């Protein structure tokens, strides 16, 4: 065990150490210690470096958590959660860490591994790349690179919502230290560690739909008018549209208001969503304007297959399935040729379905 770790541990033990299964005390030039698995030792502080390997694990573990890991509580708790520190003893943990312990966080796979001196080294990659040889992935060593990776999806489209399940794959940070790992996680999924920690400690501040919409001003002030004491069915629709696991990996914790839960499931994400986000509010503004219109009756002539085709097109767009429809799969109603045929047959020169104008002529 190196001198830095021994000296730091001895310093702390002057006030008494009781952490993760090791208790130690230094008085004058002598130390005494005991571990959770029943080992005891005592002797001169100068000989502390020579404790046996079983005890050394406890000491290096103490050092990692007090001198290396970020001392900010949410980050510290997150790193401990990654290696199961609340459930497993130090020997159990070290045995697992020797082989690497992998945990997923959204679409991230984080593997914590022990280094020779009892420190941790973290491998961070897309979960779909778990088990891939790092040599076959694009290697990064600077956590700042995570910012650029998070910006665009595999098709180079901008990702305005960081927790959308569209994180690109094919990259790896093979050897981050503890501080770098949490910085990279923050770049991929900002504030998720902090809100997850707040939830675990019973301090997550949830702001529900009603309260969030009432706070809006400027061009977003209009969403207040969508709360007209007519129930919350519209908020169910918003949540079903935006907050489904297929669209966002956060677990929705906000409801209509404190007393009124939504009927739509909040998802299975590891990290909580504590209030409607800016994407939801921006969409809600558009829906507020659209929902203020009165419905009217239109008359169209469609064959049963054409009606089904319209339904298939809406469904394909909503599920993001459009690009998966094969070029010549004319059996799929949302196939491009099928859609073009429908347009050619039923739209007039003004783009009106069945020649029926959108606005009535009176």
């Amino acid at each position, binding site marked *: 065990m190196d001198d830095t770790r021994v000296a730091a541990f001895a310093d702390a033990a002057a006030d008494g150490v009781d952490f993760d299964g090791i208790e130690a005390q230094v008085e004058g030039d002598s130390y005494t210690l005991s571990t959770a698995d029943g080992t005891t030792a005592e002797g001169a502080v100068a000989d502390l470096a020579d404790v046996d390997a079983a005890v050394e694990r406890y000491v290096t573990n103490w050092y990692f958590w007090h001198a290396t890991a970020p001392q900010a509580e949410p980050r510290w708790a997150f790193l401990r959660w990654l290696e199961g520190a609340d459930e497993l003893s130090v020997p159990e943990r070290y045995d697992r860490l020797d082989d690497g312990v992998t945990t997923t966080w959204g679409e991230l796979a984080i593997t914590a591994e022990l280094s020779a001196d009892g420190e941790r080294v973290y491998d961070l990659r897309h979960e779909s790349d778990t088990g891939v040889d790092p040599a076959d992935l694009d290697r990064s060593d600077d956590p700042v690179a995570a910012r650029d990776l998070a910006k665009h999806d595999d098709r180079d489209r901008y990702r*305005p919502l960081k927790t959308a399940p569209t994180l690109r794959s094919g990259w790896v940070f093979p050897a981050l230290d503890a501080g770098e790992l949490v910085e990279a996680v923050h770049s991929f999924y*900002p*504030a998720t560690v*902090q809100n997850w920690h*707040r939830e675990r400690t019973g301090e997550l501040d949830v*702001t529900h739909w009603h309260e969030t919409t009432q706070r809006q*001003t*400027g061009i977003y002030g209009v969403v207040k008018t969508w709360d007209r004491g007519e129930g919350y069915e519209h908020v169910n629709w918003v949540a079903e549209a935006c907050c489904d696991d297929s669209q966002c990996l956060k677990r929705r914790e906000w409801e209509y208001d404190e007393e009124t839960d939504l009927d739509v499931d909040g998802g299975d994400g590891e990290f909580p969503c504590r209030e409607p986000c*800016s994407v939801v509010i*921006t969409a809600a503004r558009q829906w507020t304007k659209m929902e203020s219109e009165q419905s009217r009756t239109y008359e169209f002539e469609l064959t049963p297959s054409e009606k089904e085709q319209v339904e298939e097109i809406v469904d394909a767009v909503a599920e993001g399935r459009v690009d998966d429809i094969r070029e010549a799969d004319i059996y799929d109603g949302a196939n491009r040729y099928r859609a073009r045929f429908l347009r050619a047959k039923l739209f007039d020169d003004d783009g009106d379905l069945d020649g029926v104008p959108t606005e009535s002529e009176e």
Partner: protein
Amino acid sequence: MKPALVIAAHGSHLNAESSTPTFTHADTIRATGAFSEVRESFWKEEPAFREGLRTVDADEVYLVPLFVSEGYFTEQVIPREFRLDGWDPELWDSDGTSATHATLTATDTDQTVHYCGPVGTHDSMSDVIVQRAKSVTGDADVGEDFGLAVVGHGTERNENSAKAIEYHADRIREMGRFDEVQALFMDEDPEVDDVTDFFEVEDIVVVPLFIADGYHTQEDIPEDMGLCEDYRDGYDVPTAVDGHDIWYAGAVGTEPLMADVVLERAADAGADVSGAIDQVRDRTRGVDPATGD
């Protein structure tokens, strides 16, 4: 623990580059080590304003809005979303361009927050505009025989929007560096469309006082000034228009020296960052000497 810096910026749901200057300036400041942490926070991106403060551990935070003018965002949205208890625009005691800072407590984190005026109205922003003129012309001595147009969005809804533009145009005019200086706008008179009408000199540097390049600075303004028919065709710097050469600079907020203005804002609010300011100026000020030869 040293205090932290949080930069509050607009961001975008549609444009990936909108947040780039914010990250770049934050990186520059981070490298100085003047703050325990430097974080970006956005209205339209993540971390959201509502969650920006909880991502830093310090008990004391300098909060600097990367916005051009005092107005709706700096007076209403940012204080509300960051939950700055007791905020009132009167605390800034500003005439529209003179806000410095106010110290408040954030209700969700109990952090002490030094809420600073926007970067756009800080005096040192004038230097960044001049620096932008140097960068785009590649001439550290630019000024003589040159006109400078400082361009703002302008809006009927907020008179402070135009004040910030006029403030810097006046300051730079008083420097006597450029032959002529004009404040021009997109949405109010005098309009940037007619830029050549406002200058006698042949060469005109046009610097939009915008934080990020986007729709207005990359599409609207170049087309309105007649640099191109369609922005997708691109344009030269300079481009000849009506007998003048227009040196179009794009958004001033992308100029590296902007990091200095963020630091100056924090310094005015009491942050101990003088060493960092010197470092950032050294790194970001001045045209590459090679271009002067």
